[in-house]
């Protein structure tokens, strides 16, 4: 009986706290995306010629680690029985990736463009016999190039 009560408490805590944190995070992500969408970030590199000469370049990275809450974990367990889209984790990975990309952009605010952008995701799980995803880390990296800013037309 006590186990049941603890379980219900944890799951409610996970649900309310998790939903709140997620909502706030998404608001922050959207606001920053709106502010930074002018900043170019592309996945191609050498294969597309750039019009302006590159003056300097450096590595730009951004990473984010997002963890799941108890409610999401329970939901995932149930999903794993029946199969189908695991919507609980979709938001998790989405948030982590977007956050990582934003942080990457913010790490090189003066650069013209970030090229050769790649995003990698990995899971950080405490070793349990339940195969549960403890948290997910998204890592975005690219080359930030600095060109002559006087020419705004063309890249």
């Amino acid at each position, binding site marked *: 009986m006590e*186990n049941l009560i603890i*379980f219900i408490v944890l799951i409610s805590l996970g649900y309310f706290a998790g939903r709140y944190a997620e909502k706030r995070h998404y608001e922050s992500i*959207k606001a920053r*995306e709106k502010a930074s969408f002018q900043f170019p970030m592309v996945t191609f590199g050498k294969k597309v010629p750039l019009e302006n000469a590159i003056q300097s370049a450096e590595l730009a990275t951004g990473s984010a680690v997002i963890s799941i809450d108890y*409610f999401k974990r329970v939901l995932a367990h149930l999903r794993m029985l029946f199969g189908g889209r695991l*919507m*609980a984790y979709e938001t998790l990975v989405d948030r982590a990736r977007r956050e990582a990309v934003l942080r990457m952009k913010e790490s090189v605010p003066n650069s013209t463009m970030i090229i050769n952008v790649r995003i990698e995701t990995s899971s950080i799980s405490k070793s349990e016999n339940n195969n549960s995803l403890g948290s997910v880390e998204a890592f975005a990296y690219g080359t930030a190039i600095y060109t002559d800013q006087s020419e705004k037309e*063309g890249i």
Partner: protein
Amino acid sequence: MKFVPSYIEGDENAPKSSPLKEFFTLAGGLLLITVVLFVVLGWVSELIVPHISTDLEKKLGSTIASQFEDDKLLESDDDALRVKRLLDRLLKYAPRKEYEFFIWVINTEEVNAVALPGGQIIIFKGLLEKIENDNELLFVIAHELGHFYNRDHLRGLGRGLTLAVLSTIILGQDSGLSSLFTGTLTTVDRKFSQEQESNADKFALELLHKTTGSIKGAMSFFEKIDRDEQLSEILYFFTTHPSPKNRIKFIQQEIEKQNYNE
């Protein structure tokens, strides 16, 4: 090539969903499936149990009974002799069965009596101290005999085992989900157990009447328990036996139905 910046909402990867709704749908579905499975298994075990021989049952019981070995009073003790004497009295009038019964008294304050597989009846010292006369003790022993004749403990074993195995396989050990489901299923199980208890009471009443010609001990024992019990009525839903009030009511109905003399 010209870079034309444009703002994209970017929510395709995580569209709006209602996790709460999903949770209730999935959990509800799983609970339903498990309960149905559980009930069906209960019926199947009801069919099988009458065919389990007493020898097999004795083998099952010996492992459980050996845990009590150290606490048993010596056979020459007054209490042990008394319960043995009463058991023999009852067995003269009990229906035929290939059981060999053993009765023990355990020296703890708990007010309880249990029937273990293999014909083992265990009376706890606390119960003996509550009993005022032989008739009440006869009723208690007869009640335990009733469990044996109905093969109740075997049914309980079957269901409990299925429950534990199922939840461990599906949900893994020590999972929060697992405790949710075992909690639900044990509540369902309690209902079955309460019915078993009533049947055992019925058997005990009949046997008491056959042995002593009256049913004096039955009512007085439960009235005493009812006075001393602290649990509120609602909590009895979760216990394995009905509340004393319900048992008294049931016994009274049985007495009237069968026309036992007081």
